């Protein structure tokens, strides 16, 4: 507060004011602390506004008005406009506030989405770069979970052999494959995963950008090394390595037990963005085909393929050449037996490609993010337009108030152009101020937004550059101009129309026009606000549903550790793995504070889909259900307590003896045995001879994401585990942090080859999976709130101006016997007709627009009646409040004073 007073006045007066306010606040606090606080802030605001205005007027008078007023022409009009605005502080503050709100959000959104939506790709001759998406003709439709957040990239990737044959068919083009993924760079447990891009040796040549220093040697692509050479992005060099000159050759060991690490081999130039839609890549490493890749040409580990078209070759021509290469590969592919349980789609996808899509790289990159960003940017523009409409209405209403003054100017010789210039400048000044305010406020909002953004969102520009740069400033300038012109058309037309009766009030014969104009403004605002409010309400309701629904297992007091057992043989049911796992569990049970511990080898919060390890029964052989295969140990059901639907859990004896019994989830029971009891039925597991009997059915659990129930089958660890990637669940009543540290210590002491890669409470790990959803809800919720503020302010402002002009009419009605309540009802009724029309229009637009958020909703439909009713109610309440306040003021008009007023 001291700073505020010192900014507004000199130090001595500042001290005096601060002391007086504090003295009075304490005195009032003896009666009521709440009232004292309210009084304090009200009085502070009042004094600050007064002092601020005074200071501004003095400054403007000294620097501005004296010079400009003497300059004549535009300068004098500008000076007059500023003085005129200062005399109407409520109107000016409303206009500036409304536009600044819209401008702040739009600018922030633009700064984030610029890279994906507008900025040209940062590569030489970028229009010659294309993405090749490999595919199959007439493929059966996939079955994906209804709400999935997988980054499903178009195309099916390619093997190194595929790319070689396509290159051979199109020797003039340059074709390269990449694999982008997020992985730990080994700073410890829970270290931030980075985007890593594996590239073939012709990557830099194809893209047209070389490292600014260093690079890969040819031999780096021939074989894998324990210490992997990497070329890092410029942004990472500056942020993690502080721009050190000696970064080349520096080695970092991730895993001391194995000696794995990376060596910095080069740094990319400033502004380089890795061309992947899969991850925001910071480390570039050489792609080395593994022995599995070389032996099985259908292992397509290069997920994205980029090509540079030579001059003279069209996209269609390249596509034809690539399909020729596919045919060559198909002829050379060895046939292999169809695996049991593989769906038709899965079987086709293991075969040769026969279809290629070639698209400009600019449209392929950001393909996952683009729909979301488009929706966000559109919402921001709607908000800005809403603000402009609001302001246009206010300006037009203000113009009517000044009709007499403008008529007088006309009579004294002012031309139409001069009047129009005056009105335009008076509109432009607050817009420019608001634009500056919006730009200033966008900076802190951008920091908040970037922190809320999910890490794996591809922005197509370095995070450091998602800032207020020249392009963002240009956006603000253009938006201000784009806003100023249409916003002022209506008021200027009104001003020019005043010439017919120069000294009249300009309102004769225009009451109907005014009324239609006001109605149009209100209807449009209400409709626009309803669309934004609807989107926000749906997304917020959706995330509330996510958090409200329990995940069908007990999550409180459960700590999760992800463990990697080095040296695992990778065989199904390997006895050595079971021995090590049981010894690990025994070690952990000895840690004080641990009430129960169990583990599984299966998908847990990794976001992946199920591999068809379990074969469906013959009657359901065509089932395309994605099933998560869990391999669980003895205490699993006691520790996690999945909700049993029918049957039973395996007994202790069955768990100890690894009996072939399984528990299935509800989705599996419904899909495999729709008309029979699943209990007693049997299923077979890949490469395991003995059939497994179903003894119980549990509810589906959200094993992959917080918002997606998945089908699962729980089998005995000793028989169905496949690898050394384990998830340990620890139930404890003590502090999670303490237990985690003790458990990790115990594990490392027990076996240094078991590495902990992730830890956390089960609740926290689940919640982290809905970060994208949380971000969307925050964003659209903010838009909805902003829209409500704009509509509320707009309706209030228009009503206030309208009732002020109708003072005489109010006075006459009251004098003729109307009651105050009747007057309020009359004004409300007039306004609510417009609001109702706006709600109808907005509902029609919303009915179309909500389909864009359908994929993001959880357990509600875009047309959920409760959400629609809530959104409409909020809009109606906002507009009623905006109408009620000036109506109540108007009803308190003194009839005598009103009748005396002209």
């Amino acid at each position: 507060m001291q700073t505020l007073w010192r900014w507004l006045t000199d130090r001595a007066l500042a001290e005096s004011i601060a002391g007086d306010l504090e003295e009075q606040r304490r005195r009032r606090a003896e009666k009521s602390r709440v009232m004292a606080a309210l009084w304090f802030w009200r009085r502070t605001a009042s004094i600050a506004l007064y002092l601020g205005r005074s200071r501004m007027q003095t400054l403007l008078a000294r620097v501005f008005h004296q010079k400009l007023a003497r300059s004549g022409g535009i300068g004098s009009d500008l000076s007059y406009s500023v003085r005129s605005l200062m005399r109407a502080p409520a109107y000016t503050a409303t206009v500036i506030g409304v536009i600044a709100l819209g401008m702040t959000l739009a600018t922030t959104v633009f700064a984030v989405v610029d890279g994906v939506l507008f900025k040209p790709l940062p590569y030489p001759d970028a229009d010659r770069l294309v993405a090749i998406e490999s595919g199959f003709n007439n493929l059966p439709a996939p079955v994906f979970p209804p709400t999935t957040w997988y980054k499903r990239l178009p195309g099916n990737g390619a093997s190194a052999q595929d790319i070689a044959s396509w290159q051979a068919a199109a020797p003039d083009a340059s074709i390269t494959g990449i694999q982008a993924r997020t992985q730990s760079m080994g700073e410890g447990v829970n270290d931030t995963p980075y985007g890593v891009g594996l590239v073939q040796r012709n990557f830099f040549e194809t893209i047209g950008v070389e490292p600014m220093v260093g690079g890969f040697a040819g031999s780096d692509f021939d074989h894998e090394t324990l210490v992997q050479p990497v070329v890092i992005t410029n942004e990472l060099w500056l942020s993690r390595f502080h721009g050190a000159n000696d970064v080349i050759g520096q080695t970092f060991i991730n895993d001391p037990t194995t000696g794995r690490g990376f060596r910095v081999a080069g740094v990319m130039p400033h502004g380089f963005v890795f061309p992947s839609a899969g991850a925001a890549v910071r480390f570039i490493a050489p792609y080395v085909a593994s022995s599995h890749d070389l032996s099985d040409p259908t292992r397509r580990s290069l997920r994205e393929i980029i090509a540079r078209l030579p001059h003279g070759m069209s996209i269609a021509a390249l596509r034809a050449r690539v399909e020729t290469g596919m045919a060559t590969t198909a002829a050379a592919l060895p046939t292999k037996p169809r695996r049991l349980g593989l769906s038709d789609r899965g079987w086709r996808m293991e075969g040769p490609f026969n279809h290629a899509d070639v698209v400009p790289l600019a449209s392929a990159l950001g393909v996952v993010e683009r729909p979301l960003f488009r929706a966000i940017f559109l919402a921001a523009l709607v908000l800005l337009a809403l603000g402009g409409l609001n302001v246009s209405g206010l300006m037009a209403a203000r113009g009517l108030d000044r009709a007499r003054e403008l008529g007088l100017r006309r009579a004294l010789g002012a031309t139409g152009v001069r009047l129009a210039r005056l009105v335009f400048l008076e509109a432009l000044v607050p817009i420019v101020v608001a634009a500056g305010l919006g730009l200033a406020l966008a900076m802190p909002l951008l920091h908040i937004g970037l922190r809320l953004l999910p890490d794996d969102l591809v922005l197509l520009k370095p995070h450091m550059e998602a800032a207020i740069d020249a392009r963002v400033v240009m956006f603000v300038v253009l938006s201000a101009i784009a806003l100023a012109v249409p916003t002022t058309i209506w008021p200027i037309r009104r001003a020019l129309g005043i010439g017919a009766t120069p000294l009249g009030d300009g309102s004769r014969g225009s009451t109907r026009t005014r009324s239609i104009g006001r109605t149009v403004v209100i209807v449009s605002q209400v409709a626009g606000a309803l669309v934004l409010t609807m989107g926000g309400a749906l997304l917020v309701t959706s995330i509330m549903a996510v958090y409200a629904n329990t995940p069908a297992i007990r999550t409180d007091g459960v700590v999760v550790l992800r463990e990697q057992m080095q040296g695992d043989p990778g065989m199904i049911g390997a006895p050595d793995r079971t021995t090590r796992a049981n010894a690990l569990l025994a070690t952990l049970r000895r840690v004080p504070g641990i009430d129960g511990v169990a583990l599984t080898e299966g998908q847990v919060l990794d976001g992946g889909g199920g591999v068809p390890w379990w074969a469906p029964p013959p009657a359901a052989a065509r089932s395309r259900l994605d099933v998560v295969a869990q391999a669980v140990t003895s205490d699993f059901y006691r520790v996690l307590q999945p909700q049993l639907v029918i049957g039973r859990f395996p007994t202790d004896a069955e768990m100890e003896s690894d009996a072939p019994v399984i528990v299935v989830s509800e989705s599996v029971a419904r899909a495999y045995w729709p008309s029979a009891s699943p209990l007693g039925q049997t299923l077979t597991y890949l490469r395991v001879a003995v059939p497994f009997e179903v003894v119980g059915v549990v509810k589906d659990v959200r094993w992959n994401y917080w918002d997606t129930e998945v089908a699962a089958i729980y089998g005995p660890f000793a028989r169905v585990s496949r690898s050394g990637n384990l998830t340990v669940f620890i139930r404890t009543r003590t502090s999670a942090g303490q237990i985690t540290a003790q458990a990790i210590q115990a594990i490392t002491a027990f076996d240094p080859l078991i590495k902990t890669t992730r830890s956390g409470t089960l609740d926290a790990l689940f919640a982290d999976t809905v970060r994208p959803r949380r971000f969307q809800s925050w964003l659209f919720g903010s838009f909805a709130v902003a829209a409500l503020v704009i509509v509320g302010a707009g309706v209030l402002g228009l009503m206030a101006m309208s009732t002020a002009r109708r003072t005489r009419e109010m006075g006459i009605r009251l004098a003729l016997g109307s009651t105050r309540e009747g007057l309020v009802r009359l004004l409300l009724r007039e306004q609510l007709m417009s609001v109702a029309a706006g709600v109808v229009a907005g509902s029609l637009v919303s009915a179309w627009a909500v389909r864009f958020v359908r994929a993001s909703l959880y357990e509600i439909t875009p047309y959920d009646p409760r959400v629609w009713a809530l959104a409409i109610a909020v809009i109606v309440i906002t507009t009623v409040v905006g109408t009620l306040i000036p109506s109540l003021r108007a009803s308190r008009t003194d009839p005598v004073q009103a009748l005396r007023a002209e």
Partner: protein
Amino acid sequence: MGREPLPLGEFEQMILLAVLQCGDDAYGVTVQEELVSRTKRRVSSGAIYMTLDRLEKKGLLVSHLTEPVAERGGRAKRCYQVTKPAVAALTHSRRALANLWEGLELAD
């Protein structure tokens, strides 16, 4: 003939008179309370502080700081006193108003 007294605006006169009424304890809070109770009208706090400051700069008020007190958050109080030129200006204004009112009688 002495120097002509400084002309005073209406609000400036009211502030000076309120300072005189408050006596030794004339500071922002008491001046505002005095104005509100005697004129029965709402007065902007910001206007009071600006006018006190302006009058001090014109030499019509002098101020001094008291000891810091806990009730003011450890801040000193700035108390004002009217100067001789202010008394002369007030007297001059009163005489001028009285001359203008002479012979007039207006009904409420």
